[in-house]
């Protein structure tokens, strides 16, 4: 009997060891291996090399000589962050315990087109505007236009709160939705908000998930559709955007430009048409990068941003006069 028990214990130990034998090996953790892994992850998964004219092989040749076996974690981070920023994509980020990389020239190389203090003081009216689930809103132009500011699609709201906002817009002459400096957030929120502006249920964008390392490895295109919801607003609407309208906001802009009563006003949006996915590196850092490509119905790649129907920049003269000429232009457009 003792032999049998020992035999069973032996078999158990052997099987447990089999797991170790069968599992593939983890990659090395030295700077060179981490560099190689990061470069390869981007090469395999990033969808916009061709669109942006990036030669990723030459990027490797540029940054690999800067990798040294004994370099500090901070130095390694700096090289890797600089390398992934060659994608010129704010959705491509490297995260470590001490720093997160973020490509900012997308926003900084364009006019800001927003003076938040001015908007708060002269269009929302301090202590007077409503704050409903992330939406700041007030009535302008003799209470005939609802001005709605939404600072981030990451700010959650309930359907009841959305109902309240659109009930308040009901019967008004016009609606202004200010999405300047809205860097995005939840795609679902973008769809929810767009569905309240839809004149009818319809497809609005097309998306493709990258599903392999090859340049042409994409799944078949999938339509993203909005379903008309009530209460909604189908009267004249102006959506204000600037270059810092990014990611989910960029997607929202692409959706609402399909609606005939909506005018997109301001600057071209910042892009961010690839929805990000995250991958872990051999040292536990996290690489986040665009994993899809999204198009408007006219074939526009949304990574390039959505151009406005009316190009309007915030003027210094207007700001000096305590007016936001972009909102003023929207109000003029909404007057009969």
């Amino acid at each position: 009997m003792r032999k049998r028990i020992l035999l069973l214990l032996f078999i158990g130990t052997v099987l447990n060891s089999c797991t170790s034998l069968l599992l593939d090996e983890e990659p090395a953790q030295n700077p060179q291996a981490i560099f190689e892994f990061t470069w390869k992850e981007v090469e395999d998964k990033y969808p916009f090399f061709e669109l942006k004219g990036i030669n990723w092989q030459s990027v490797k040749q540029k940054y690999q000589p800067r990798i040294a076996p004994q370099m500090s974690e901070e130095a390694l981070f700096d090289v890797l962050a600089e390398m992934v920023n060659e994608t010129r994509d704010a959705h491509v980020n490297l995260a470590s315990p001490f720093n997160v990389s973020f490509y900012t020239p997308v926003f900084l190389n364009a006019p800001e087109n927003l003076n938040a203090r001015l908007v708060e003081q002269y269009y929302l009216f301090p202590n007077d505007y409503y704050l409903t689930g992330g939406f700041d809103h007030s009535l302008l132009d003799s209470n005939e236009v609802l001005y709605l500011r939404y600072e981030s699609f990451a700010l959650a709201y309930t359907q009841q709160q959305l109902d309240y906002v659109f009930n308040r817009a009901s019967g008004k002459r016009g609606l202004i939705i200010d999405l300047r400096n809205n860097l995005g957030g939840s795609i679902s929120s973008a769809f929810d908000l767009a569905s309240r502006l839809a004149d009818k249920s319809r497809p609005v964008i097309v998306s493709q998930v990258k599903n392999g390392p090859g340049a042409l490895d994409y799944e078949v295109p999938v339509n993203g559709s909005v379903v008309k919801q009530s209460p909604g607003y189908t009267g004249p609407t102006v959506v204000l955007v600037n270059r810092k309208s990014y990611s989910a906001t960029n997607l929202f802009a692409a959706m609402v430009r399909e609606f005939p009563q909506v005018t997109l006003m301001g600057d071209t949006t910042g892009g961010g048409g690839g929805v990000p996915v995250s991958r872990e590196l051999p040292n536990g850092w996290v690489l986040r990068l665009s994993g899809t490509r999204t198009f408007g119905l006219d074939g526009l790649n949304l990574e390039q941003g959505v151009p406005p129907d009316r190009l309007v920049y915030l003027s210094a003269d207007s700001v000096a006069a305590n007016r936001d000429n972009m909102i003023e232009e929207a109000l003029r457009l909404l007057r009969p």
Partner: protein
Amino acid sequence: MFRVYWCLLIGWLCLPYSLFSQDQSFWAKHKVAVKAREKYFADGYFFGEQRVLDTWQSPLIYSGTSLGYSKAYISRSKGFYKEIALQFFFSPMAHSRSAPWDPDLTRSFYPQFFIQYLPIQIKKDSSLYPIWLGLNIDMGWQFRINDRLQNSAIAYEFWLPAIGPSMRIEHAFSFRERNYRLFRKDRKLGPGKFKAYASMTLPLVAWASRPPFSSLADYVGGDDLFSTAWDQRKAASLGSYRRVLIDWGVWWQGRERRSVSLGYRWEFYQIDRPGHRVQSGTSVVYVRFHSLFRP
């Protein structure tokens, strides 16, 4: 309302079926023909470790504790072994390179429905040393949530169903040489008997699905838009899906209607997808309490 459903489900799973079972006199009294077949309900509790390498998310091996519960129906006779089980596992895991600032904890949930049907008995000359050969069918769903610095990632795969050959060997014995009053010296089935058993299952073909190379499942709110991508995931077939399950232990019949088994189970599976691979090795010890509800 869903809480009520959950409570009912959990209550049902934890219910000892022996409460409703009848002893032999009941069947005799009512002159019901009783088949010569033992039927059990079994509650199993599993404890062990799981190691996962899922290159879709990370090049690192995650390992951690695996806790499980199963509710099984077992029917066994000379020429027949059948087991139908619902199994639930939960495994909190972390990888060896976790930094103190972020343990990168992965929580893995995997319910599994398992049918083992072994109708062919190779060795019939002794009921005490049967070898069964038959079919294993199981389907399961594994779901992992990864906490990340920026995003939480969700990965999941399911196999529906995996089919392959299975073999089970049983050998009855007692401590005859020991003068234990607890155990009988004869070899008839009954209280005080041990049965050693071992089984090996090799699911060969499965419709096993994984998220694609890049998935939006880890993006909060992205599911609505890309739900149709689910249909586009390709099935893994022979060659890209490999799995083996080995299970052995002892089964002690303490009383007429109560028995307990102590066992060890090892399972390894691998799914290869374009650009990534998932491998999972699980070793668990378990205890199963059997309630004979119909002799």
